[in-house]
């Protein structure tokens, strides 16, 4: 019946133009661009919320916003950065790069790929609309702990449903990535020949499929506790609020690796290129990523040391957490060994690469401190924790994405970015970042609690410094937007290779690559 019709359709391609091109596109490059633009907008939005927080904390006392709104800012800043900026940003890189790196004509399921993206703006709208409701946005922290989230208004329900939509997007996107890697590799592109970025995303996608549904279940329990009379988190009915924390962190700990593993992949692409040496210890890198992913499932309760677990639980989760340092250390060691005696140059991507290795390691080491149970009793819920996760998430994930952007932007646009401005962007970012977040280690060790809009006078100086750094960091990112915009609009023509003899199939294509690439698969030797 429909045979003739379909065959007919196939011959004259009708491609919408203008806005509808982007809404209906099934092209991995278009969708990658959409993801990256969305992530950058969310990055600025979440950053603006962070600046509200830092403005309030610039001096002791309550002056800029009321405490309830402050709580909404800490909560939504985190949700936007995690689910709106970092995760979609990484998926944007995956969309652009994975098909190019493995020699595939596109993602395995192009229409589904479109949907994974186009759920996101709607989910973000749902989340943001919570600010318009009577009780305001969610204010319980991004971890959405019961019983605080049982008490909030309609904003919490909108947040729960936004999380459901984000979960659908992530799971569908992750399925697409796994299937693409398993089924779309060019002949000869064996698993152990894949670029590390592809490996990290393969494992990240597995983590996403394994834990996003668990998170969806957790917020569903919140929803039914709020509106349908269940007692999952209410001891009067035999439930337990700590149950929420366990389920949340069973999702939440793999989630932090979901955000960092693709960043490791980007760094593993940048450092060999600018060291002019192959990546040191490729096999051990792959095994380390797999090891980190495995460990991520069995360490979740180190986020809950002070909640009152049996001693045996505290000790188990402490030792299991310490184990993570081993595969992570392998990665750091391998990156440094790749640079060792390399013929290094320091273009902007490499500056970000080296910056991430250095700064992420600081975050990793403060993570080790937090993983020691008795020490955590002191650090828990202080600014030390805030400093720690910004060193891994900002100077890990976010800065890796910036480096990755500079690294592949000439390939994507066909133009070189402005190297001088790029270097300015790197130095301003890393200096302001350290001004903003390094003092928070001291604040936390001295006992300043997180998520509180006021503080004791003794914390004033470090908070002033931190706020200055945060505003500098925020404004610097506008420069990033300008550099990318300028590069899209024009600039020196980029060659196919862009860099000095980089490794990977993407560099065999012209810059910019044609709309469809590898329709006939390349043969990898």
């Amino acid at each position, binding site marked *: 019946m429909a045979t003739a019709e379909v065959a007919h359709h196939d011959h004259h391609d009708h491609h919408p133009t203008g806005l509808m091109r982007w809404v209906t596109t099934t092209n991995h490059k278009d969708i990658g661009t959409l993801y990256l633009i969305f992530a950058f907008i969310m990055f600025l939005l979440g950053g603006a919320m962070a600046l509200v927080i830092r403005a309030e904390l610039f001096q002791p006392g309550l002056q800029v916003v009321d405490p309830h709104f402050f709580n909404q800012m800490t909560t939504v800043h985190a949700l936007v950065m995690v689910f709106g900026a970092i995760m979609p940003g990484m998926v944007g890189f995956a969309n652009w790069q994975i098909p190019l790196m493995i020699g595939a004509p596109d993602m395995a399921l192009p229409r589904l790929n*479109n949907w994974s993206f186009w759920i996101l703006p709607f989910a973000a709208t749902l989340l943001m609309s919570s600010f318009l409701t009577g009780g305001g946005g969610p204010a319980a922290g991004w971890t959405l702990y019961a019983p605080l989230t049982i008490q909030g208004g309609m904003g919490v329900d909108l947040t729960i449903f936004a999380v*459901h939509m984000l979960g659908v997007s992530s799971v569908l996107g992750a399925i697409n990535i796994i299937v693409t890697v398993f089924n779309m590799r060019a002949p000869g592109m064996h698993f152990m020949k894949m670029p590390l970025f592809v490996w990290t995303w393969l494992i990240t996608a597995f983590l996403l499929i394994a834990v996003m549904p668990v998170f969806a279940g957790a917020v569903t329990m919140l929803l039914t506790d709020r509106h349908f009379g269940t007692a999952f988190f209410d001891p009067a009915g035999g439930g337990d609020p700590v149950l929420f924390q*366990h389920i949340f962190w069973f999702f939440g700990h793999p989630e932090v690796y979901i955000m960092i593993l693709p960043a490791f992949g980007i760094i593993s692409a940048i450092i060999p290129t600018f060291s002019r040496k192959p990546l040191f210890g490729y096999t051990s890198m792959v095994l380390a990523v797999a090891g980190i992913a495995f460990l991520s499932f069995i360490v979740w309760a180190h986020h809950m040391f002070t909640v009152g677990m049996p001693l045996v639980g505290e000790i188990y989760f402490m030792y299991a957490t310490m184990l993570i340092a081993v595969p992570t250390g392998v990665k750091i060691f391998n990156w440094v060994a790749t640079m060792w005696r390399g013929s290094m140059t320091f273009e902007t991507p490499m500056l970000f690469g080296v910056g991430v290795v250095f700064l992420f390691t600081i975050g990793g080491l403060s993570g080790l401190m937090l993983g020691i149970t008795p020490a955590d009793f002191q650090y828990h819920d202080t600014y030390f924790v805030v400093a720690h996760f910004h060193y891994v998430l900002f100077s890990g994930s976010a800065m890796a994405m910036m480096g990755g952007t500079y690294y592949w932007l000439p390939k994507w646009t066909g133009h070189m970015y402005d190297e001088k401005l790029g270097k300015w962007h790197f130095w301003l970012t890393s200096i302001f970042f350290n001004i903003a977040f390094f003092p928070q280690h001291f604040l936390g060790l001295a006992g300043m609690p997180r998520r509180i809009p006021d503080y004791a006078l003794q914390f004033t100086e470090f908070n002033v410094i931190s706020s200055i750094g945060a505003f500098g960091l925020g404004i610097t990112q506008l420069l990033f937007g300008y550099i990318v915009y300028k590069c899209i609009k024009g600039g020196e023509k980029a060659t196919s290779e862009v860099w000095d003899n980089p490794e990977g199939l993407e560099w065999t294509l012209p810059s910019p690559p044609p709309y469809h690439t590898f329709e006939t698969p390349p043969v990898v030797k």
Partner: protein
Amino acid sequence: MSSTPGSYYLPNPSHWPIVGSIGLFSLLLGLALAINEVNAGPWVMTFGGVVTVYMLAGWFGTVARESEGGLYNDHVGMSFRMSMLWFIFSEVMFFAGFFGALFYVRVLSVPWLAETDLLWPGYAGGWPTAGPAGAVPILPDTPVQEGQFSTIGPWGIPFWNTVILLSSSVTVTIAHHALKADHRAKLIIWLAITVALGVIFLFFQAAEYIHAYKDLGLTLGTGVYGATFFMLTGFHGAHVTIGAIILAVILFRVIAGHFSPDNHFAFEAGAWYWHFVDTVWVGLFIFVYVL
């Protein structure tokens, strides 16, 4: 995107995803409004539901036409198969979250709550429980008085439902073998029997829920026992419903002459989903009803 014979099929730009986003968004926004007693809620929700169903019908219809039109080669088929298996894995993890909650409560937190006399002195714990402030459990399948609840024993309806679902796994496999042998009549009969078994299961499940609410004092609000019981069996029932709809659609496609012995991914996907639903039920039967 033209697809030369033998190459991987890349679809043209499609409006179905954006339709799906609008549907999903309206559905969830409407639900949020409805549970907060905003008048527009049910209307927004209905609109969202209709749009979502329209998207599902249109999108799957497109895929079915493309498949019958011979646009998919084995390579595309492999992508579909892999993605279905990973999708089922995500569903397994969704249920794992609820099973995890059940185990945590039964094995750890209820005994802890009973052990400490600080919060609820005199609470004895045990399972089933509706918590220290909830109704008191009595023997299974026993009519209750005020302030009591009873649970559903495993060897009545749940046992027969287990038999029904496990048989349906067998019947769908017989249908699959019939499809591979190109015995259309046999295929239609066994697939129809499978769908019918699914519907019978759901009918019994509904009867069980009515019995629980009316006679046993067991509701969604019966403490953590009621919460885990109804959420686990309820989500399972929802998945049986989805699975039965999938198999019913497949049945209509079979009657319309779709599928061939070596090209019937949709049938396989539906059958895998059905086996998954059965497996979850076995877990439910053991951990929710028997133990």
